[in-house]
């Protein structure tokens, strides 16, 4: 099947994450992927969107979070875009280090990296963050995903 792209954009309000969750549920359902992939994609997409809303846009609902779901035969990529200040991914602390284990925050990116095959951050000098979450898909039976 040729590449398919679904796009979504919504105001930066945490309350809209419930809608995103439902949409993802329908999305992975119709992709007919295995449960592990479904869980990984859903959880990671929500973590990335949470960060775009909270850190990228500081919950300013006039700013839009942009998402793209790019489905190819052999992989799925979720892109999450915000127009915030960006950050330095290399400076993150390890949340599974015993010293950090009981901190209330700092787990989102670790969760994405644990569940997805690849997590790429792209920054445009103060013009925003693009997170690309990739998951390889097992060979499929030929019907459209």
């Amino acid at each position: 099947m040729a590449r398919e792209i679904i796009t979504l954009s919504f105001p930066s309000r945490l309350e809209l994450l419930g809608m995103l969750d439902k949409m993802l549920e329908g999305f992975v359902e119709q992709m007919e992927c295995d449960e592990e992939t479904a869980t990984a994609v859903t959880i990671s997409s929500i973590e990335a969107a949470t960060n775009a809303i909270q850190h990228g846009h500081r919950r300013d609902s006039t700013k839009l979070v942009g998402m793209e779901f790019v489905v190819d035969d052999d992989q799925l990529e979720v892109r999450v875009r915000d127009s915030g200040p960006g950050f330095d991914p290399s400076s993150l602390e390890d949340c599974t280090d015993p010293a950090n284990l009981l901190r209330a925050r700092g787990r989102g990116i670790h969760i994405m990296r644990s569940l997805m095959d690849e997590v790429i951050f792209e920054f445009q000098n103060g013009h925003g963050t693009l997170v690309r979450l990739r998951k390889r898909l097992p060979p499929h039976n030929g019907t459209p995903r």
Partner: protein
Amino acid sequence: MKIQRQDSGAVAILRVSGKLMGGPDAEAFQSVVLEALGQGRRHLLVDLGDVNWINSTGLGILISSYTTLRKRGGELKLLNVSKRIESILMVTKLNTYFESFQDETRALESFRAA
């Protein structure tokens, strides 16, 4: 998020439903925990069976409560954890802190045994 509290001895059972995602939920959760503590419930059993939705920020709420209780010699355990929440607990290694049960009676007994 909605919380219903029900007590069993020194254990406050919190039945949470809806979304658990930080922000306003954090304060609401914390105040129920402090109220239960103030009324002599040292332990917390958090029933997540009706939580259809949690993110890492929501997890932070559980961790803060865990820390509060530990300081007073109490425990926080989880009941009816879905596969999704289980996945998040696993990759963050928080399953080493949060003991988790699928059976309420057993969960309550585990507090008494301690």
